[in-house]
């Protein structure tokens, strides 16, 4: 009977190995998804029981947790004077409505459960210190953020500023905004009421327009991409392009006009650089027709269109139409029809040109520090695939300098600093005023900041608005703040 006993012993070992496998599956492999499950109240209990790490901008903690004497243990607070300014970045932390923004995307670091904090947790365990979440230091420059917030005034819109050499996000402003403190309270009824009011607001204050609101038609700022495609396909800055007063769109009865119905040049032709400088619609529509939709899409994608991006929040993908016919291609080439972008995407276009044609991965989190201030995670600038050649980038830079010095973007000029930029005035519908755009970088020869500004529906100027008049001054203020 010893042989079957030994076999039975093997069977017992196999049974236990299966149990160990199943346990490992539950506690290790499946654990993250089980912990993230909405029905798992332990995650909430544990989070409220621990001090959540602060979110830091510059030297200032803009979101902190303080001990309170209620069942939740800790109260999340956002610095009152800056709470709405940073709301699109921090997001909110609510006992009723979970989280958003950095609070959501850096949640495991802030609550201390991230894998990267393993050794910190171990240390707390050994030293018996009260465990605390990590602090998250953002790349935001408070002066730039404040300048963007002030410059945008009461207008609806968004501003994004990047460091073109690293991809660090220096400012991310979206207006109108909200006070996340009203959602962080522990009084369920008050929080629910505030939430309902914010959700019902037609101005959508909780949308982060900079990265994840409704995407916008880029208007003439898209001509940078069309020009890039042209330069990459044999054009030069001084190549003569046709620039008629009106362009009869192929296969349709539509006629494309220039802004205000004016002629771009007396001769009906001009250089590519001049066409960008005065933002000549007919010239770029014709270039788009000549290059074709595929070349435009390819160039747009090289700048980051149709590519998933997290900063760490998820960024809505910018999109170039999938299969436009000829007239739609002509309209797409000037940023109309169904081209849709986020302000961050347009800031990336400027930043890429500023960085010699190489886009940098945008990021919002500079460092993650454990309780004892040890750096557990530090952002490393990451190059993305080259979008245009160095020569193309240089040519585009010179053309953008022309826009600011002697074209549609003159109101972005800063004494003593060479700014390179591009305006945009995007038609949305017959009734609504156009969106005003401006994207730029400076200083042109050694760029330190790239910026994109959108003011929805012309802002305070309404139908009279142009990118140059409404958006460029905001960009100028942001650039000045960044270069100080």
């Amino acid at each position, binding site marked *: *009977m*010893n*042989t*079957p*006993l*030994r076999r*039975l*012993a093997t069977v*017992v*070992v196999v*049974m*236990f190995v*299966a*149990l*160990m496998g*199943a*346990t*490992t*599956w*539950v*506690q*290790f492999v*499946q*654990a*993250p998804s*089980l*912990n993230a*499950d909405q*029905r*798992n*109240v*332990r*995650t909430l*209990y*544990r989070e409220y029981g621990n001090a959540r790490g602060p979110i830091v901008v510059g030297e200032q903690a803009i979101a902190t947790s303080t001990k309170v004497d209620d069942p939740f243990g800790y109260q999340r607070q956002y610095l009152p004077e800056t709470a709405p300014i940073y709301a699109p970045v921090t997001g909110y932390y609510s006992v009723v409505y979970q989280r958003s923004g950095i609070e959501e995307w850096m949640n495991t670091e802030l609550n201390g459960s991230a894998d990267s904090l393993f050794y910190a947790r171990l240390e707390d*365990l050994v030293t018996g210190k009260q465990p605390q979440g990590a602090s998250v230091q953002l790349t935001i420059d408070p002066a730039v953020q404040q300048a963007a917030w002030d410059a945008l005034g009461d207008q609806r819109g968004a501003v994004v500023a990047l460091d073109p050499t690293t991809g660090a996000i220096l400012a991310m402003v979206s207006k109108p905004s909200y006070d996340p403190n009203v959602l962080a309270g522990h009084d369920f009824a008050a929080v629910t009421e505030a939430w309902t009011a914010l959700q019902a607001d037609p101005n959508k204050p909780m949308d982060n327009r900079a990265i994840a609101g409704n995407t916008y038609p880029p208007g003439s700022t898209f001509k940078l991409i069309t020009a890039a495609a042209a330069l990459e396909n044999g054009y030069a800055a001084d190549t003569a392009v046709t620039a008629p007063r009106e362009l009869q769109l192929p296969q349709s009865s539509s006629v494309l006009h220039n802004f205000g119905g004016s002629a771009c040049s007396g001769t009906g032709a001009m250089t590519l650089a001049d066409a960008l400088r005065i933002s000549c619609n007919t010239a770029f529509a014709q270039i788009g027709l000549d290059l074709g939709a595929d070349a435009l899409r390819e160039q747009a994608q090289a700048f980051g269109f149709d590519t998933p991006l997290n900063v760490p929040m998820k960024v809505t993908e910018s999109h170039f139409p999938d299969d436009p016919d000829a007239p739609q291609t002509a309209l797409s080439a000037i940023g109309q029809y169904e081209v849709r972008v986020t302000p961050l995407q347009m800031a990336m276009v400027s930043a890429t040109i500023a960085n010699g044609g190489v886009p940098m991965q945008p990021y919002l989190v500079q460092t993650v520090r454990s309780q004892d201030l040890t750096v557990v995670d530090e952002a490393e600038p990451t190059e993305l695939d080259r979008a245009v050649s160095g020569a193309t980038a240089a040519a585009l830079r010179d053309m953008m300098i022309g826009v600011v010095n002697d074209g549609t973007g003159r109101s972005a000029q800063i004494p003593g600093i060479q700014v390179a930029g591009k305006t945009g005035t995007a038609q949305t519908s017959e009734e609504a005023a156009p969106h005003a755009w401006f994207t730029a970088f400076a200083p042109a020869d050694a760029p330190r900041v790239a910026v994109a500004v959108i003011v929805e529906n012309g802002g305070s100027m309404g139908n009279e608005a142009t990118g140059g008049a409404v958006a460029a001054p905001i960009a100028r203020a942001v650039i000045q703040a960044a270069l100080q």
Partner: protein
Amino acid sequence: MATVAPLQVRPGRSLELGLLIIALTLGVGAYALVGLATAGSVPADIVGYSAGLIALAVGMHVVLRWRAPYADPVILPAVVALNGIGLAMIYRIDLAYEAREKAGGFAERQLVWTAISMVLAAVVIVILRDHRTLRRYTYTAMVAGLVLIVAPLAPVIGREINGARIWIHVGPASLQPAELAKIVVAVFFAGYLVTTRDTLALAGPRFLGLQLPRIRDLGPILLAWLVSLSVLVLQRDLGTSLLFFGLFVGMLYLATERISWVLIGAGLFVGGAALAARLFSHVGARFDVWLTALDADTYHRAPGGSGQLVGGLFGMASGGLFGTGLGQGRPDLVPYAESDFIVASLGEELGLTGLLALLVLYLVLAQRGLRTAIGVRDGFGKLFAGGMAFVVAFQCFVVVGGVTRLIPLTGLTMPFLAYGGSSLLANWIIAALLLRISDSARRPAPVSDGDTGGLPVRGAPPAGSDNETEVLILDEDIR
């Protein structure tokens, strides 16, 4: 002819004492940690508690020195460690229930049951001088086993709790007779199979390369199957049903060495269970919960939803690799955290690491039991020890497998760890019987009286042994 060097057999009692100290340290340390984590200081009764636990464990150790000096030195420490950790965890869950003003007091009762169980285990070792005596009661055991299994169905004493009719109430005490039935049923199977094994092993028709038994020998397995299925259907207890049938098939295989019996048994049970799942909604619901536990529909269904199972999974997941630490999780969020779901509670607070360590402890326990079965000389002892070691391992498999969703969840409790008097009592008696059998397995055979041709070899076969190669195996396997 093999020449055998005399094997030096060490009783291993000092080793046992050393391991026992480690086991007690674990149990008492866990108890102290619970206090430290929840109240910031060691529990007030820590001195009395540790003194009691130490007295009981050392008492067992002394009884072994006295009555079973050659008993396996690992079994007792393993069991004491499991029992001690279980007590600490139950105490911890009590505290959580207290904080939520739910009924607690499980730890005190479990402590009383631990004392009763250990004393009874000692009594078993003292009274039962030779396990072969039990063979005389083969058919008495059958009757006792059937009575115990059927008792919960009896009108006056039987009680239905949470849908399963597996309890009896006698006066103030409530018992799960099936736990005790494990032991008597194992006695019956061992006694019955050791006499009929040759008949059952006889070859029948061959089918697909498999040597099938003779049709006329299918009677006993069909009977065991019917009893198991009636437990499943009438008492609504998948766990007990699975446990008895698993025990029977396992022992049948040990007796006959025929894989075909295992396959027939597994086929019968799976078929029967599948049929029952279709015919009876309470069985079907168990399968549904198993397969679709995380679906919102299943989760929110009441009664019979997967809330408890998923709650356990959530608890284990939140424990992660290293656990929250004793007293720092929320095991009390799962219903029956102290009994059916103590594995999830331990997984939450001790983490994957702690749970794997506990599983290894069980594996060691089961393997020492099987090792005992290999070492013991008589067929009855082999079957009995093998069956009991297997039933402990199998019960772990059914419980942990159920909690981790490896197999459908059943109502069984984890041996030694979980709250429950009947279970604790039965498993301590199993431990005592294994210790008793291991004593005779490891005890040097009396010096030969001439049967072996005058070779004065320790470990030579005593008269009446059923297999010559087996008797030479004393402490180490020589095969």
